[in-house]
């Protein structure tokens, strides 16, 4: 049973983003289809992270239009994005350092919590039932990512590779429809990378999650992604299947650093 890539669910049109006078993104258009793995690549400072930040509303572009599930909008809002099932990880791990792995993952489910703080203060009753129900879901994520042994460890004490995995776990705990991964394999050794690749593919495969990822390791990108968009200095210079992108002269020159 092969994975079926569906319709376009996210369409970014002519996005431009500036910080003061600095142009981070210039007139970028690209789309994401349901269930696909979409990679964003490009040299450092190409605007890849900014792109993700535009998708989930951390940054608001000055120009352009975002069409999400057929709905036209000027920009996204972080809260709307998370409510619409967009979860993400960050380039520099953004875990909650003072909390355990379990609690970090539980925060991923905050949008699904129905009890209010008064019920939670009383605990026994609805809040406890809800807590247990979400704990079960989170335990499944823990099982999926094979991090049982660190369940109750404060994340600050974990090595880098495991922190990355926990951060993915926090995103997965939200049962996202779309997952934005900002360099999920950066700084990992070969074995950790293999594990992470397997998890990304499994997430995509088992839960049908659409994945947009930024990655530097070309081998990984070419192996796992369905389509690749290439950015350079905030501009889009290539878009297509891994093979198409690999043979795109502009992409080659950007990567080899030759003059335009």
């Amino acid at each position, binding site marked *: 049973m092969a994975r079926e890539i569906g319709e376009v669910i996210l369409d970014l049109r002519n996005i431009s983003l500036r910080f003061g006078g600095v142009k981070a993104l210039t007139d970028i258009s690209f789309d994401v289809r349901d269930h696909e793995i979409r990679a964003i690549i490009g040299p450092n400072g190409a605007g890849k992270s900014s792109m993700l930040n535009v998708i989930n509303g951390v940054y608001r572009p000055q120009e352009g239009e975002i069409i999400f599930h057929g709905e036209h909008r000027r920009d996204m809002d972080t809260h709307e994005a998370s409510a619409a099932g967009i979860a993400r990880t960050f380039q520099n791990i953004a875990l909650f350092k003072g909390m355990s792995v379990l609690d970090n993952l539980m925060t991923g489910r905050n949008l699904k919590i129905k009890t209010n703080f008064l019920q939670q203060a009383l605990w026994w009753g609805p809040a406890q039932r809800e807590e247990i129900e979400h704990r079960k879901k989170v335990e499944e994520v*823990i099982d999926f990512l094979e991090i049982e042994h660190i369940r109750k460890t404060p994340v600050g004490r974990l090595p880098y590779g495991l922190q990355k995995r926990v951060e993915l776990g926090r995103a997965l705990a939200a049962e996202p429809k779309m997952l934005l991964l900002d360099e999920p394999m950066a700084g990992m050794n070969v074995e950790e990378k293999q594990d992470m690749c397997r998890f990304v593919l499994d997430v995509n495969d088992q839960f049908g999650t659409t994945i947009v990822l930024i990655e530097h390791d070309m081998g990984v990108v070419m192996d796992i992604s369905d389509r690749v968009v290439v950015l350079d200095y905030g501009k889009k210079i290539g878009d297509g299947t891994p093979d198409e992108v690999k043979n795109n002269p502009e992409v080659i020159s950007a990567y080899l650093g030759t003059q335009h």
Partner: protein
Amino acid sequence: MAVTPSGESLDTFPRLLMHHARVRGARPAMREKDLGIWQTWSWSQVAEETQAFASGLAQLGFLRGDRLAIIGDNRPHLYGSMLSAQMLGGIPVPMYQDAVAAEMLFVLQDAGIHIAFVEDQEQVDKLLEIKDQCPELLHIVYDDPRGLNHYTQPFLHSFDEIVAAGRIRNQNQPEFIAAEIAQGRTDDVSVMLYTSGTTGKPKGVCQSHHAFIASARGGAEFDGLRDTDDILSYLPMAWVGDHLFSIAQAIYAGFTVNCPESGDTVLTDLREIGPTYYFAPPRVFENMLTQVMIRMEDAGAIKRGMFHYFMDVAKRCGAEILDGKPVSASDRLLYALGNLLVYGPLRNVLGMTRIRVAYTAGAAIGPDLCRFYRSIGINLKQLYGQTETCAYVGLQPDREIKFDSVGKPAPGVEIKIADNGEILVKGPMLLTEYYKRPDATAESINADGYFMTGDAGFLDHDGHLKIIDRAKDVGKLSGGAMFAPNYIENKLKFFQYIKEAVCFGHDRDMVCAFINIDMGAVGNWAERRNIAYSGYTDLACKPAVLELIGDCVAKVNAELAAEELTADTQIHRFLVLHKELDPDDDELTRTRKVRRGFIADKYAVLVEALYTGKPTQFIETEVKFEDGRRGKVAADLVIRDVPTYDAQGKRAA
């Protein structure tokens, strides 16, 4: 034989199970650490689920007398499936889960497996790899569906699917399973366990319900096992010991079987569950002691001093107190204090607080090791048996512990020593036959109905059985002295720094040895001395390490010298091997016994060097890595001479 009020005798495992479901249906039968908590199955749940799975299996075409292959880690569903197979009059065939596909092939073919129940994707993949060579294998059922949802083979089924089908069938035919159970006879084969076989192809040992129930009853009554007991099941299900403890005794006595979360978490899970009944091979106890000593090395001076002081107290009187022997009041007081400060907490961190009975078997355990555990209040005992005897021949009775014996003959077991020293046994626990191997069956049971264990030993004047070695391994030095390599190897392995040892000497003029250092203990030792090393091979070649091991060997020599029988078999020369002996390289059996003959052939050049007096020898060996890749390990090994002693303990050479 126990009989239910309705007059039904409890002479098969399915009948025992149904009995527990009736009598203690709500009590926990099995637990498994999964998703962060100990998921629990009560006896009635287990009965219901195993019946459903049995019906599902029947639906797949599983017939009376069929063999069900079971491959995976210790999981409740896998244990349950044994009972499901037995309900239908079938025979579960648990297999070693860490075997590679090619190794599984033989058993699958030999046992004529139609249906295999496996744990997960990893095992499914292995079976798919060899399925073409097993035309009889018709169905594969898996427990954990993870990663398998794209497998489209029609012969693959999930556990849930089979159970669901079975439930429907049980609703439609409520009497089906009961009728099947009623058809079972106590002499039916209840399980087939393949002996790992130190030589030749594995043989399927057929054991009847009667044999295992008799063994279980004997053991349970001997140690007073109750339904409130807990056991942690983490040893391979294909091993007879696990079958005796986790299936036969558990189903007989009705206690709870606890399955760890994974192989990596056994120690954590041990601490959590705190079993009351525990089994581990000697190497586990050895590793645990090594860890204790290593961890205490890092403690502050005061705490370390306190620890050693009270360990000395324990050494002096701990085992005696456990055995109820007379001990002076002051020692009792000190021991009580030590119990508060050291032994109690130590048992706690080891997860052994609740242990009433702990057993070890599979290899000889060093007397000091045994004494250590007993002295801190853990009732560690030895037992002796083989796959062919349901792991049930000799048991150490409480309060009658001799560290160098494997106990007295178990209830119902008759022991005789043959003229050549071989131990012969007779009793209800004997195997029915070797599967499809009448020749081997005939060879192993003599005309009087005794099973020939292949071990050499003797009964002492108190009736305790003492094992010397494998009967065929007991050799002679060319000078005529008896040479029991295992005996010497075990002495060597008692040192925390030595993980494995292989001794040579049969038909030669002296004893020489290969040593494997213990990476954890020696590594730690090296680090504390600022000796840098890059890996096992590097560490093994360090002169300081050789010095360290040399001291250990010399101490063994001193011990050997003290006994008349062994004084001539002191170790003259040894070397530290450049790689760890590994079951994957066929150097050890799956139960981690050394294959001495194989090793002697493989490293003939090293043996040669030992006996020709060469100071060093170059060696290169191919190894298999965990991921299946192959590589080479090479080193220039230094061979060292060791001082030997005369009977007075004076240095002889």
